[in-house]
């Protein structure tokens, strides 16, 4: 199967058009033949009437003049002849032109017995003749006299005419076919031009000459180009983001690497060198973890579908209850029913997971989660009864890698990731003091509709 639309359509035309043309040609040829025969028949009928008009009935006998009005009946080579038979098939009269007609043919014609009153027209191809037979009944004094009039006309002229017609017809049809193909080709070229232009523009983007599809396209192609533009745009943003993340990652790894490299040149004791490597690898782990969390965080939110906050809180709390089983932490949840988060479920899990883990980690026995709607904002509070965070440290704790307490394990990036996620949703994270006495994280999010 040919690959291009144009080729496919052209191939279809090349195959289909001849079929159409042959049908049309056959129909035309047929129509022409029919009209030829019709005119032959009506001419023959006219000759019959002319013959009858000059006939006389004398003493129970049909009498015809020797020479008729029509001169061709008198010329031997004219190709037009007339014969008259009586009811017994005996030849009663023949035109002068009929002298060359085969006796055998005359015998055959004499045997024709048409229905009374109905003429018969036939084309005797083998004899190259048109034959018109007319049964005649003459009613005189109650007596019926039956005769058969036969008009014979050569078909040579008609056949020549037909051949000429055929040659011309098929010649013209061939011309029409070629012209139609040419036209179709041109129409296709013109009709598919926008697609070619589109392909050209896309390869322009590939070559880096342009950044998006600028051309105006027909209505059918417009949705494709619109979506293509969107795709190109998303893809470009994604690439930029990857580049930035990669650059961030590479740059931030450089420092600990430099420290390690530098330390190799300094004279460290084995122990202090080990400690240094340990510190720096911790730092690198932290960096990698942070960038990974950022990668998890989806930046393109497709149509935001509502994610149940209640369900997420319950799942995370029951998971954390296992991890911190020895603390026997009691979780109180209020106002979470029907609250939802318009965004990616993983973002919500990441946000709540980090904050709830902090609450479980630092809380002594109780953790409280509550939510409320304030005008256009959803306020989500996560508090615990732990030591809390001093007001001076409220800002510090939200910075990446900052940890006030080094004894509880963790990467120190959780809150930075939370702040990152929230800012991408136009939300905010604040730190305060919980009614339970410990720290309280306040999440503000634009309310889901």
């Amino acid at each position, binding site marked *: 199967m040919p690959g291009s639309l144009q080729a496919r359509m052209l191939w279809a035309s090349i195959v289909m058009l001849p079929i159409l043309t042959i049908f049309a040609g056959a129909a035309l040829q047929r129509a022409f033949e029919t009209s030829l025969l019709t005119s032959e028949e009506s001419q023959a009928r006219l000759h019959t009437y002319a013959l009858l008009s000059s006939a006389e009935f004398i003493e129970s006998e049909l009498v015809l003049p020797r020479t008729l009005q029509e001169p061709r009946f008198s010329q031997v080579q004219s190709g037009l002849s007339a014969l008259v038979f009586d009811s017994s098939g005996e030849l009663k009269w023949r035109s002068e032109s009929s002298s060359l007609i085969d006796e055998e043919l005359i015998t055959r014609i004499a045997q024709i017995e048409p229905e009374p009153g109905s003429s018969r027209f036939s084309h005797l191809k083998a004899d190259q003749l048109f034959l018109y037979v007319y049964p005649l009944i003459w009613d005189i004094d109650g007596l019926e006299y039956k005769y058969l009039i036969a008009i014979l006309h050569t078909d040579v002229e008609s056949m020549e005419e037909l051949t000429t017609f055929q040659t011309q017809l098929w010649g013209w049809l061939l011309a029409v076919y070629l012209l139609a193909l040419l036209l179709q080709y041109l129409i296709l070229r013109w009709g598919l031009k926008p697609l070619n232009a589109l392909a050209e523009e896309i390869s322009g983007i590939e070559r880096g000459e342009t950044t998006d599809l600028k051309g105006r396209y027909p209505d059918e192609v417009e949705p494709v180009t619109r979506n293509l533009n969107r795709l190109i745009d998303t893809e470009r943003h994604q690439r930029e983001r990857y580049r930035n993340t990669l650059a961030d990652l590479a740059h931030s790894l450089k420092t600990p690497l430099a420290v390690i490299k530098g330390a190799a040149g300094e004279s460290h004791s084995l122990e202090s060198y080990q400690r240094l490597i340990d510190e720096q690898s911790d730092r690198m782990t932290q960096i990698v973890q942070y960038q990974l969390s950022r990668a998890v965080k989806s930046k393109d939110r497709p149509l935001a579908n509502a994610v149940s906050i209640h369900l997420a809180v319950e799942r995370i709390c029951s998971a954390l209850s296992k*991890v911190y089983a*020895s603390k026997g932490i009691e979780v109180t949840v209020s106002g979470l029913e029907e609250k939802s988060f318009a965004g990616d*479920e993983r973002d919500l899990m990441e946000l709540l997971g980090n904050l709830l883990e902090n609450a479980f980690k630092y809380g002594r026995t109780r953790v409280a989660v509550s939510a409320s709607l304030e005008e256009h904002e959803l306020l989500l509070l996560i508090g615990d009864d732990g030591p809390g965070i001093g007001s001076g440290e409220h800002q510090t704790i939200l910075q990446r890698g900052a940890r006030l307490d080094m004894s509880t394990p963790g990467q120190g990036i959780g809150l930075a990731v939370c702040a990152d996620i929230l800012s991408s949703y136009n939300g905010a994270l604040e730190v305060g003091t919980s009614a339970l006495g410990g720290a309280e994280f306040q999440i503000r999010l634009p309310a889901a509709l």
Partner: protein
Amino acid sequence: MKILIVEDDPDLRRQLVTSLNSRSYTVEECEDGDEAVYLGTEYEFDLAIVDIGLPGRSGLEVIRAWRKAQRDMPVLILTARGDWQDKVEGLESGADDYLVKPFHIEELSARVNALLRRAAGHAKPQMTYGSITLDTTARSVSVNGEEVKLTSYEYRTLEYLVLHAGQTISKAELTEHLYHQDYDRDSNVLEVFIRRLRQKLDPEQTLNPILTVRGLGYRFALEATD
């Protein structure tokens, strides 16, 4: 204490095995999910460490299979991605704690310790039974505040008995949980350990912390004083 390690990365697996062995745990290792399901359901372990990202059958499936087969040993999952979706799914599948890669071996050891204690019903790493104090973090024992030097096998024997205090533990169970499968299981060895433990913990024979239940096994008989 017998631990099953399911980790497909050979380097990390070797590191885990070496360090847990050096901390006197009996360690079995395997690298894929199917074998893990088999080992975990057919043999008794005190704890399992499972990497979530196993080839073929995932770590989550392994844990679900164990739980379905009524195996309730504590399970610690290792995850490389460390996003919450992963962690929550892991814990929902039946795991008890998680650790995000990379981690310090000390961190792993602390988690393992805590899980084992928790499974035995102890919240704190220090357990006091009268004058005997067992510190599962430092893996040390002291009597009347004075540390008693124990060999690794002696400590393991004592720890197992203490964590199952009040229960009679058969010799077979002790051997099973304390030694490698290929270890020579001559029950005399166990008797030697018990005798030495008794001597070290209770030289005057006033406490009688470890009772011999004739025909059945041993029992740690002291009451916890917390």
